[in-house]
């Protein structure tokens, strides 16, 4: 176990501060020390022990991410750095994405997570919902899951484990050091952050 870690939240667009606050509270609960901040440059990403890609609009993050930052994230992930992708973050980590209504749009994706994602899979904002989810990876009690114009995982590769389902749709996955969720743990329950932080500390 490590004494202190350096966790970064990709700081291009989205609910960056909410993810930072949630990570901080998870670390406090677990009595762990570390630094959490928004990161935007390769130099900062190369120093990270763990990284969160927040919710927001995946098309915006795709267009803002520079080739250099893109490469640094890919390299760090392949070296085994724990990564959490939330909603748009999961789309950015995926190898393919298409919109439920509009279809495929040219989009720069990290292709680190061997999944294909359907964007806005539950519909528009009026169809956004909150519910309780069963996630055995986290524990027995159900967690509050917030789905906002959420994507779902349509296809998974051999190495991908299904972490949670909602009405037979895959809404959370894990592939080695990568976790992706359709819902927003940073707005609901911080249990997933607790798990993620512990992985960063190699507990």
């Amino acid at each position, binding site marked *: 176990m490590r004494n202190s870690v350096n966790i970064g939240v990709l700081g291009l667009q*989205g609910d960056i501060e909410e993810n930072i606050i949630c990570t901080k509270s998870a670390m406090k609960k677990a009595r762990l020390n570390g630094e959490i901040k928004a990161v935007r440059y390769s130099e900062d990403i190369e120093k990270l022990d763990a990284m969160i890609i927040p919710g927001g609009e995946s098309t915006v993050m795709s267009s803002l991410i520079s080739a250099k930052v893109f490469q640094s994230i890919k390299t760090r992930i392949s070296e085994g750095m724990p990564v959490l992708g939330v909603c748009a973050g999961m789309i950015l980590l995926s190898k393919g994405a298409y919109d439920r209504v509009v279809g495929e749009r040219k989009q720069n994706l990290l292709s680190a997570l061997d999944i294909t994602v359907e964007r806005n899979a539950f519909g528009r904002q009026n169809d956004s919902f909150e519910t309780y989810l069963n996630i055995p990876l986290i524990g027995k009690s159900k967690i509050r899951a917030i789905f906002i114009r959420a994507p779902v995982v349509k296809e998974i590769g051999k190495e991908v484990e299904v972490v949670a389902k909602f009405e037979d749709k895959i809404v959370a996955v894990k592939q080695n050091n990568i976790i992706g969720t359709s819902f927003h743990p940073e707005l609901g329950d911080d249990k997933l952050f607790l798990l993620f932080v512990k992985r960063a500390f190699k507990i």
Partner: protein
Amino acid sequence: MVISVAQQESRASRSLEIRKLTIDRGTTLLKRGFARMQKHGVIMDITNVEQARIAEEAGAVAVMVLDKLPYDIRKMGGVARTASVNVIREIIDNTTIPIMAKCRIGHVSEAQLLQGIGVDMIDESEVLTPADEQRHIWKWDFTTPFVNGAKNLGEALRRIEEGCAMIRTKGEPGTGNVSEAVSHIKLVNYEIRKLHALCGDKQELIRVAREMRASFSLVEEVSRLGKLPVVNFAAGGISTPADAAFLMNLGCDGVFVGSGVFKANDASQRARAIVLATSHFNSPEIVAEAQNMIDENKSMLGLDTKNLELRMQERGPI
């Protein structure tokens, strides 16, 4: 609105465990959460599907549909109403990012219509001609989230009390002049700082609540948090990347650009540059790089806010 899964699904094939689950839609958390996903992004005013495409490709976080851009509303006069249903539908069917649309202040039916079409957020906006001079829409009645404009903290709190999930500065729309938006965000943040300093002093907070004509509980919440419980975006007069970065540095959570993009002669390039500057607002080198992507000769000429015939920020009930 609570819909139990048991009502929706057939009784068979579902375990007792799942049947106990409920799905909640249109909650305050979902509305405010949606607004939070727009943070550090740029929401662009558009009037048709081609402009929606340009905005999406430039990296807009959402688009705002209007019948006419604010600058044209000023020029043409008359009554400005919500955009055509057909146009909004066409944009919805061809765009992957969220779609927002404006309705007139107090016009409940226009808002219901926008909710019915499936718009992701409704802007109850002073850019359109107000329909009710006494009251705003009671936004708690809707599942679709709302954004409202505010010039000061009292106004922001009264709109939040009516159920809005996002605040933006009013600024002076369609002028290409940021000065009003700058004074609005500065005033709101100054008033929040003052409230924060009063944290715990209930008697003084009650006095402030009465002065602001807002509920004590909301005033106390803001005093405790030291910030609004919803996001606050910049709007009204932003036309260059530097404008956007300036307002972000003053503490805005994101930016609305109205006439600034599509009234300029380099819309696509400018849209891209404003997105870059908004994301990297605190890196002067990248803001300079963004500013270098546009040509000042191509900016909208703009209007002086001192001698306007119509001050949109003063329309409607406050």
